[in-house]
């Protein structure tokens, strides 16, 4: 095998310029494909991270009825024992944060608005999404305090500010009436625009008391070290909880619309990548075609002296793999360096303002997800295998005498 690899390697460099041009074409395709995907996925990763950390968590534990009927009647009891069972399920779990959420009416002296009330443990919540960093006025409450933090959008609508009193009216667990007055300790510029206009954060115990749900929560959101472990962690928690009343969801199950949106948006870059690879595939085919046709006599001689057809195919296979591997490896390294260099792209002017208005920083972050690199390798390898069919068929049907005379 070493001899076949040596033969293949040297054959590649018989026409150095042609081989280099082919490799450069592959490098170009890989770099372009990776950059397109990294830019798209970078924005999506940021969006998903925001949505997931402020909304669903990567993994979420719920009562089994809550997804169909998100009501306080479908809460579940949360204590240290349950927390430990969740945390002990998998070593990749970084933290678990309990939440109780419901919709209530928020009112000032003259106006009323529908709000989303979220009872949270301030310390855990901050670990989860650094919520305290978004407080633009006042402070985020601590455990034991009986104050509220509200989105700046909601505060503007209700003309409330720090120190004012917020009245909350709604329904608690099992139809109990729920109403309370809370001093506003802080305003936050919430990065999720809908939440900015409607969110009211309360301390978990205060919210539970308000909603007659002491000890009960609507969800426990689970923080994990890496998004790609989502499914594995969810499975581990399911196994460890072993509770028919509780279900474990992953964020794609809870936010399918985001994935659908992403898929739709990625259709065009994907199509461009396919077109790019088809063009590169033809270039690659041209090289392999020439490399095969100009060596027919050599192949005929090798078969004459006793080299089996399958060994000859192996040599050509190795040549095809080598040329594509060099191109892919160089392409991946180059695209990685380019990504490091340009990450993040800073927007300016109207584009920047538009993004800021949506609650995002005026930057386009790059994604460094490993899969966007190795999928390019797989694409090129697939193309290489299709291209390799030509020399394979040529060798299979090669007439030794005709080849040796060519």
């Amino acid at each position: 095998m070493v001899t076949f690899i040596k033969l293949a390697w040297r054959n590649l460099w018989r026409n150095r310029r042609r081989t280099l041009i082919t490799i450069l074409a592959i490098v170009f395709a890989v770099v372009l494909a990776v950059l397109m995907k990294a830019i798209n996925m970078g924005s999506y990763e940021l969006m998903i991270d925001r949505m997931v950390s402020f909304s669903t968590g990567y993994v979420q534990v719920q009562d089994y009825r809550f997804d169909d009927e998100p009501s306080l009647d479908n809460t579940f009891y949360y204590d240290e024992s349950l927390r430990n069972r969740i945390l002990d399920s998998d070593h990749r779990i970084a933290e678990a944060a309990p939440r109780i959420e419901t919709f209530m009416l928020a009112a000032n002296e003259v106006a009323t608005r529908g709000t989303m009330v979220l009872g949270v443990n301030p310390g855990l919540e901050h670990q989860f999404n650094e919520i305290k960093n978004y407080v633009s006025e006042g402070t985020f409450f601590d455990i034991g305090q009986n104050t509220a933090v509200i989105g700046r959008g909601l505060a503007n609508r209700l003309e409330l500010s720090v120190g004012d009193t917020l009245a909350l009216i709604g329904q608690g667990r099992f139809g109990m009436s729920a109403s309370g007055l809370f001093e506003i300790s802080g305003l936050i510029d919430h990065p999720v625009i809908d939440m900015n206009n409607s969110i009211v954060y309360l301390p978990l115990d205060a919210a539970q008391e308000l909603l007659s749900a002491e000890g009960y929560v609507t969800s426990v959101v689970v923080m994990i070290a890496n998004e790609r472990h989502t499914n594995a962690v969810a499975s581990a928690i399911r196994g460890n909880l072993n509770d028919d009343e509780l279900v474990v969801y992953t964020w794609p199950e809870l936010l399918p619309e985001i994935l659908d949106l992403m898929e739709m948006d990625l259709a065009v870059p994907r199509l461009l990548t396919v077109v790019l690879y088809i063009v590169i595939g033809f270039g690659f085919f041209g090289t392999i075609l020439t490399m095969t046709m100009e060596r027919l006599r050599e192949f005929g001689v090798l078969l004459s002296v006793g080299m089996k057809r399958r060994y000859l195919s192996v040599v050509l296979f190795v040549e095809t793999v080598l040329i594509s591997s060099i191109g892919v490896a160089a392409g991946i390294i180059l695209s990685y360096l380019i990504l490091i260099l340009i990450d993040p792209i800073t927007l300016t002017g109207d584009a920047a303002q538009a993004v800021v208005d949506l609650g995002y920083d005026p930057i386009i972050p790059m994604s460094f997800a490993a899969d966007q690199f190795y999928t390019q390798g797989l694409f090129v390898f697939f193309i290489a295998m299709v291209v390799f069919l030509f020399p394979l068929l040529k060798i299979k049907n090669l007439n030794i005498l005709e080849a040796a005379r060519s």
Partner: protein
Amino acid sequence: MAIIKTQDLSKVYNPDTIPVHALRDVNISFEEGEFTAVRGPSGSGKTTLLNMLGGLDKPTGGSVWINGEDISAMKDSDRIDFRLKNIGFVFQHYNLIPVFTARENVSFIMLLQKRDKKEIQKRADELLDQVGLGERKDARPVQLSGGQQQRVAVARALASEPKFILADEPTANLDTKAAMNLLDIMERMNKEENVTFIFSTHDQRVIDRARRVVTMVDGAIHKDEVKEVTQAG
């Protein structure tokens, strides 16, 4: 004892359109240790005969027996394997692997035979020494003259320890000095190591050296002379 024997060997090209009879019922045998030249004008069938003897082409009639095996009835893959173990080839255009050195070219056949690495190295060096290229073992074909390349080709043909070597116009592209040098080497191998050589040639220098000369005309054996017998007679 005959190591090669043909029986009513025929080859017709284009049988369905304009048939060309390249070989017509050829019956010939070759003994071990022969140094034979097959001569004849262009189109007489000498190269076709060599191709048949080497299992590179299939006859349309008759058969070729080598050491008691009918190679014309073998499958393509079996014939490739048979060639590797039994037949050495020397071509007019040398046909060395251009990206391999002289030593690697000679070793390659033995690698295909899956021989021991040390043995391969030793034999390749010995063979290159025997053909007078001990100093050019690491040279690639492009760095060698035509005569030197053909000597590497002879070493390569000998590497597999074949039953016989088929040489198709081996001196056609060589100047007199290189041709004589090559013939000296092949003659020495024949005499000292009893290697059987069968040449297809126009070259009088080869014909003069051959101990048996087979003349072909229109795909048939026209004359078959064994010089030593003639001389003795």
